[in-house]
């Protein structure tokens, strides 16, 4: 099933979890619980050490996951081990995509410690990155496609720098989801909408990710700016309850993206040493609340001209 198809039967519920948080096995269970709770697409975070777009909740998830041994290679195994049928989107930062496959290319050069043993007697040698650098994002995208990932979200890659990744995604049939911020307008919006596929991630408010007690009113304005574009609009950043989900869908969203509120459950379970099964149940139940909220939002939606 393609990403866009996931929006065909009513509003799509798109939960996010960091893969491997807090450990590989529990995380598999948690992601599967999201599907049982009604997920239509699942965003899986591949943790990067410098997550500049994330608030504290997901920063901590990234730390747990990295400490649990998550790497890009493990991430692809994780995706293969997952028993879910909904489409998966990988959310990660560009350096991991850009560097994937470099270790093979560089061979043992990183480990040539013998020659580097003295900090005091070595000048820079020309780096032998030429060939490796030219590979760019292609190996990552090829691998992602081969394990069944349907799309990518890359929070630190604006449309201006996305050419090589867009090309690789086209070659291997992946969607490239872009984030539209409340500050994205005019020409920038147009440029981005030329490149986007799958769905557009509408950032509900300025700032970083994180559960909020209220939903921003910037969402409606963003959705209005996007009304003319024929691509599903999923709203994220701050949604934490069924009631939020309902309101967001009522204001015109085609889907909702929820991360931090779910990650909070994982974090709590980890801190309190809760049995993973109980954590999975809690995830499933919040997932269901969010999905039900989103569906309720459609039924109350004021009649408005359908997208053509």
């Amino acid at each position, binding site marked *: 099933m393609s990403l866009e198809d996931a929006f065909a039967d009513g509003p799509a519920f798109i939960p996010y979890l960091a893969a491997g948080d807090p450990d590989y096995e529990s995380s598999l269970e948690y992601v599967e619980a999201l599907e049982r709770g009604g997920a239509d697409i699942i965003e899986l975070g591949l943790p990067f050490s410098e997550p500049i777009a994330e608030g504290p909740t997901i920063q901590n998830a990234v730390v747990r996951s990295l400490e649990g041994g998550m790497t890009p290679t493990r991430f692809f195994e994780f995706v293969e081990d997952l028993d879910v049928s909904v489409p998966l989107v990988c959310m990660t930062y560009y350096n991991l995509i850009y560097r*994937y496959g470099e270790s093979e290319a*560089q061979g043992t050069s990183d480990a040539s410690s013998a020659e580097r043993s003295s900090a005091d007697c070595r000048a820079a040698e020309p*780096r032998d990155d030429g060939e490796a650098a030219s590979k760019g994002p292609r190996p990552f995208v090829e691998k992602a496609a081969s394990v069944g990932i349907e799309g990518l979200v890359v929070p630190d890659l604006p449309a201006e720098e996305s050419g090589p990744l867009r090309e690789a995604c086209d070659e291997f049939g992946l969607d490239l989801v872009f984030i539209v911020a409340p500050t994205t307008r005019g020409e920038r919006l147009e440029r981005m909408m030329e490149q986007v596929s799958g769905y557009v991630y509408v950032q509900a408010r300025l700032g970083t990710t994180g559960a909020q007690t209220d939903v921003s009113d910037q969402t409606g304005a963003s959705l209005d700016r996007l009304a003319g574009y024929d691509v599903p609009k999923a709203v994220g950043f701050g949604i934490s309850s069924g009631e939020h989900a309902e309101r967001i869908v009522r204001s015109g969203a085609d889907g909702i993206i929820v991360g931090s509120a779910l990650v909070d459950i994982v974090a709590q379970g980890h801190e309190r040493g809760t049995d993973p099964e109980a954590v999975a149940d809690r995830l499933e139940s919040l997932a269901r609340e969010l999905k039900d909220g989103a569906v309720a939002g459609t039924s109350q939606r004021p009649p408005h001209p359908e997208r053509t």
Partner: protein
Amino acid sequence: MSTDGKFGDYGGQYVPEALMPAIEELEDAYERYVLGNEDGFMDEFRTRLREFGGRPTPLQRADRLSERYDREVYLKREDLVHGGAHKLNNALGQVLLAKYMGKDRIIAETGAGQHGTATAMACAHLDVPCEIYMGERDINRQRPNVFRMKLNGSEVNPVTVGRGTLKEAISETMRDWATNVEDTHYVIGSVVGPHPFPSMVRDFQSVISEEARTQAREKMGRLPDSVLACAGGGSNTMGAFAEFVDDDETALYAVEAGGSTLDVDEEAGVAPNSASLTTGSEGILHGARTTILQDHDGQIMESHSISSGLDYAGVGPELAYLVDTGRVTAVNVGDDDALTAFHRLSQMEGIIPALETAHAFGYLERVAGPDATGEHDGLGEFVVVNVSGRGDKDLESAIEETYERDIDIAPNMDEFTGGL
């Protein structure tokens, strides 16, 4: 020089979408005010640098070092800029630019605290509210600088994520910017980050080499054979090099922090050095493609240096490019040699340098000193060393580190520590 934000393959704008409009706005302001001197921006900047900042700084002959190394050694005295480091050149420029842009809130990150104090001074001087993000570990290493920022009326926000140093402080400042982008300007402290920061910070800092170039001609009747500057993110480096880049007769040496060793512990994700130019590889960090310390997956490694101002896992994209093209030679000096150089300059020239700066002098000693290792001495007969900052901020850690390390040239540390 580049105006499209690319230096070869390096540079660019790898930032969250929410920041892009602010970055485009900044690009526009950079072109109009800095490059185009619109509304007399550059004139006002130069006047304030002179009157508030104390510029121009001298190019001073170091008599005893000249004798020791048997050549003409001159010091570009950026330690005499108000605040005690070159950092004010950039901070004053950016805070003034923010005012021209109508931004009414300033945020900045700081590692050693030098950029934070410079920004805090500039903000007090220009009457703009200011918040500084600083890693918790750095706050503990640099107490006096924290007090200075607060005395100038800035708020200091501790960053507790990760190891609590410069890398985390930059990430956290970017998050603040992404939240408050409409009324806030982020005064980045080095020639790093997304375009236009690397070019703009270089332009504000290039007053160093502009002055040095003229002063060298006045004093020696010619350009120097070499210029040495320490390199962390690279702002004093690019400032000291910028106007010499087209002078083929002048060799340029960027001296990185070799830390305790150039070995890398991939398992632990730790590089016990900050030598991105020497040991790093190409990647994307904090908005730019450049040379960074990363593991084979692309995760950023924790860096190390005795000097917190050099302790960063990346380096400015233009500097990385100039090293790749061979115009700049990257070398490195470890913690011990830097500390020894710190004491030597203090004793021989009456200048207590910042630990960052001491790295540049450590290199001079290594290739030209009495125990020269035989490493190629390409420095020539007329050497300019950029004294990027003074060492008052480092006294506590320098004393502690010296005590632990048993540095030959150092005075008896018991006098300072009471034997600890």
